[in-house]
């Protein structure tokens, strides 16, 4: 099958920041993403588990964007505008997609 190169950006961020992140993505014309739940994790700000928290302040999610390589920088700028002061991680991978016109 014919495939095309793309980038897969994975952003782990506080759940309460999710809508701010996706709003920023939309503003940068990134309209394709998938949000995954996160059970727990560990980082510079310590360890946490979902069942150890109460209420909306808690928890993280993972936002995954598949995007054409040339649009990566726009996405990262938008994302870091939101993620910067908050706890979270961003990683970027190469991937191949089939129906490139979608991205």
């Amino acid at each position, binding site marked *: 099958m014919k495939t095309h190169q793309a980038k897969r950006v994975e952003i782990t961020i*506080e759940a*309460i*920041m999710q*809508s*701010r992140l996706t709003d920023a993505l939309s503003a940068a014309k990134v309209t394709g993403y998938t949000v995954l739940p996160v059970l727990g994790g560990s980082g510079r700000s*310590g*360890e946490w*588990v*979902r*069942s*150890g*928290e*109460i*209420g*909306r*302040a808690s928890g993280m999610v993972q936002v995954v964007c598949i995007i054409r390589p040339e649009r990566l920088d726009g996405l990262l700028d938008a994302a870091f505008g939101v993620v910067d*002061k*908050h*706890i979270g991680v961003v990683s970027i991978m190469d991937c191949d997609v089939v129906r490139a016109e979608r991205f």
Partner: protein
Amino acid sequence: MDQILSLAANNLLSPIILSFVLGVAASLARSDLSVPEAAAKALSIYLLFAIGFKGGVSVAAHGVDAKLGLTLLVGIILSAGLPLIAFGLLQVMTGLSRLDAAAVAAHYGSISIVTFVAATSVLQSSGITYEGYMVAVAAAMEAPAILSALWLISRGGSERRMDSDLWREILLNGSIVLLVGAFFIGWITGEEGLSEISSFIVAPFKGVLCLFLLDMGLVAGRGLRSRSGVLKPGVLAFGLLMPVVGSSLGAVFGLLLGLSTGGVALLMVLSASASYIAVPAAMRVALPEANPSIYLTLSLGVTFPFNLTLGIPLYVAVASALTGA
């Protein structure tokens, strides 16, 4: 004094408190006991709906008290004012940064609805009535404290602008909407509505509260286990002193308003309690640099257990004494 002690003992040995203690003990012992997140949220929806509804029914039954508006206003003043006192105490008692101190202060102006619910259940066991609209006062006290805290920070030079999204999130957070909505439903449908659903929202209420407090205990215990390092003596002392200060102010205002014994007790409870849902969420957005370990551990690990076990019977006893009941 005897009465206080017996109330306290009664309170401490009730299934509700013992369930909380079980939760704390289980998580300190690192048991894997846990209440699924969805179940805990469902229990809190039940409790908010029930307490709001019953408050509304009570307002429908007794008519709108002339003091309703005034009490709401006092609630807002307390919520906005208590953070200033808390901030001052924190500056004196602890070495927290201005940012952390402001974040903590916001929690103590706002309220814990579960503490409120537990207090109504103690009042009910003791046969003490209260104004139904205290539920609405609880709702009104959630948000003003956040504003005060942000004002404290901006005075310190670092301007904070609340975006309108955050405003909407705070004012329309799920707990407030459900509490106030159920209050109006109860008010509209009155005793008749209550009779339709009382075997759901009245009869099993205390039992549900037990399971909810079991979960609160688990969460509080887990927080204490993993974050107790942040509890420097001064900070810990603040978490025990502030509810006493808050409840005293609540008592003064309750008496000035001429509330019933139960009403005074509940205003004390609201002033004494600290938020651990709405305010932490707002702080993560507005003051992300403030350390959540500090405010969560204080509010949920120190002040909540204190109020639940010793505070509530104390406030009820004081309110009884002051109102001559």
